């Protein structure tokens, strides 16, 4: 039962229904989804990096907190993401091993045969405990060229003991099972395990210094990764917000690929990356994002080219006599004839000014012409069917053209975004070129335009 404070004032506009004043009794679902979103946004950093960094081949989303970055040189980086809420205390070594996912990363690394081509990364926004021999020191002991090299044996022993303790409760098959003891320091460490932990630390990187929290990660990714990528790729009219949302949703979709927790890193780490298991191939494929997959999620804000160039008097395109004669023969009203001519000229100018000027324009235009022509013939056939035998149908055909010639109805594309008026202008140009009539076919050279 949640208490509700009813505070309805006299003014009806100020009244807030009690339902909106209740604090949710249990907000776990929201927290969980926020956490998953954060993890997807960290994975998005790798996906956005693919757009500008040639060395990354693909990213595989293993599970919500894990993803794998595969590099073109055959190496892979297994990444584990852990978000730390503000109210939580600093990470200490034990937290990092258990809640921070180091034991999980260690298990994945061992599953990959501790191969030389595998690197590991723990990304967390949580602050590390800086006290002597604690988490911040552990972070400095990691990597091929660690900042701190003294006390590594003691730290590796501590980490080994934490892993072995975690193994009592967690089914990590690549961590040995040892006899349970009351005190952690009494745990008997198997021979060679500390040395293995030291090798693990040498391939590990704990990324925590400038990792944004869930409140700031969206803005960080937009500013630091998406915008520079758009600039580098020279893309125009990208809707940054919508693009970013779609990329993150695509990652979440990859994360949701299966209900069962995946362990795909060991397959991806195989240097040849050749899989003979078709089921596993398909499973990985569903979770894999390539640079082109990310590019497909880009949302564009296309600007339509105006029908008439602003600030300039509309020019008159060459030709037009045939169009006039055909519209008149089809009994199209005089004002519509004049408007048709205006649109034809507007199209002429728009194409001349906005074509790309590079190879491919001609075929783009030809495809659009064919589609417009097809629509014009359909309009003519329908107008003819609707009209009484022998009656003029040009006016009706013109109205049908207006209804049906829309950019949405066209499959062909041009180097610029067009509107319905451009399409009608093109249709009238085709008519002027004698591709179709607004009446039965006649000899335009003998007809006098009125």
């Amino acid at each position, binding site marked *: 039962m949640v208490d509700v404070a009813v505070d309805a004032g006299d003014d009806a506009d100020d009244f807030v229904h009690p339902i909106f004043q209740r604090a949710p009794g249990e907000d776990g679902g929201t927290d969980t989804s926020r956490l998953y979103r954060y993890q997807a946004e960290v994975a998005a950093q790798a996906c956005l990096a693919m757009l500008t960094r040639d060395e990354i081949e693909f990213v595989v989303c293993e599970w919500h907190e894990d993803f794998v970055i595969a590099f073109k040189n055959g190496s892979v980086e297994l990444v584990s993401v852990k978000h730390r809420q503000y109210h939580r205390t600093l990470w200490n070594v034990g937290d990092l091993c258990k809640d921070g996912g180091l034991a999980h990363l260690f298990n994945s690394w061992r599953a990959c045969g501790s191969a030389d081509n595998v690197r590991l990364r723990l990304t967390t926004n949580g602050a590390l405990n800086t006290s002597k021999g604690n988490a911040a020191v552990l972070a400095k002991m990691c990597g091929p060229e660690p900042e701190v090299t003294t006390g590594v044996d003691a730290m590796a022993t501590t980490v080994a003991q934490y892993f072995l303790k975690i193994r009592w409760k967690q089914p990590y098959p690549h961590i040995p099972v040892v006899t349970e003891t009351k005190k952690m320091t009494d745990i008997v460490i198997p021979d060679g395990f500390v040395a293995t932990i030291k090798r693990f630390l040498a391939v590990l990187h704990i990324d925590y210094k400038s990792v944004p929290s869930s409140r700031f990660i969206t803005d960080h990714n937009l500013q630091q990764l998406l915008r520079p990528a758009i600039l580098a790729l020279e893309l125009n009219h990208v809707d940054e917000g919508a693009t970013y949302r779609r990329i993150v949703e695509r990652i979440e979709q990859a994360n949701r690929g299966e209900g069962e927790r995946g362990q795909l890193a060991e397959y991806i780490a195989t240097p040849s990356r050749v899989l003979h298991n078709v089921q596993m191939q398909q499973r990985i494929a569903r979770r894999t994002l390539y640079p082109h997959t990310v590019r497909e999620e880009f949302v564009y804000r296309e600007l339509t080219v105006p029908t008439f160039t602003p600030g300039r008097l509309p020019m008159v395109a060459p030709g037009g006599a045939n169009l006039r004669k055909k519209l008149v023969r089809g009994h199209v009203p005089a004002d519509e004839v004049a408007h048709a001519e205006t649109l034809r000229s507007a199209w002429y100018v728009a194409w001349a000014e906005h074509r790309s000027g590079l190879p491919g324009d001609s075929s783009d235009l030809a495809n659009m012409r064919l589609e417009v022509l097809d629509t014009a013939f359909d309009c003519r056939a329908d107008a003819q069917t609707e009209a009484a035998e022998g009656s003029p149908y040009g006016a009706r055909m013109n109205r049908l053209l207006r209804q049906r010639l829309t950019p949405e109805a066209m499959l062909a594309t041009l180097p610029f975004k067009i509107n319905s008026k451009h399409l009608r202008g093109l249709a009238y140009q085709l008519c002027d070129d004698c591709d*179709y009539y607004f009446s039965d076919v006649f000899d335009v050279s003998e007809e006098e335009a009125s």
Partner: protein
Amino acid sequence: MSNASERLASEARIKGQARSEERREAHYHEARVLLLIDRFTTARTGLAGLTKLAKLDFLLRYPAMLERLLKESGHTWPRGTEPTAAERRAVESRMTRYKYGPWDQRYYSVLGSLAARDLITYGEGDRAEFRITASGAIAAATLSETPEWALVSHRTALLKKHFDKSGSALKTLIYERLPDAVDRPWRTEI
């Protein structure tokens, strides 16, 4: 003539017209790109990268834009190579931003056609390098002597002299010096 046969005749006419336009269009672009690659091929290197090719070609197609870069760098046009009145008007009347941008892939057909006729070669690897062949060099020399292409050929020499930079450097130069040529909200600095 029935509606159907009229439709077929019109479609055939449009397709025929498109074919001849495509041929004409391809020849025009191929000639210009050939001159550019010829100019940038030396004994040791060729024209490195599609981005560089596209950016140089942008400046070649829009001499009014090239003129702005030249002026800013304190360079002048060699006598007789300045933009014509028509070329200046063309840039003023066109929204050039639509001519600039992710158009690089449109060069594939041009380069493929030149390579297929043994006029250029392009290297394998991450960054393609385009080089003129012996027969390509003869074709470019012949072309340069025609009145239609002599001016373009002179302008490629100007590009080689002042703008023989990497594709990335040319891209940055165009973005920074010709912001109106690219359709981008320029104030969204990172």
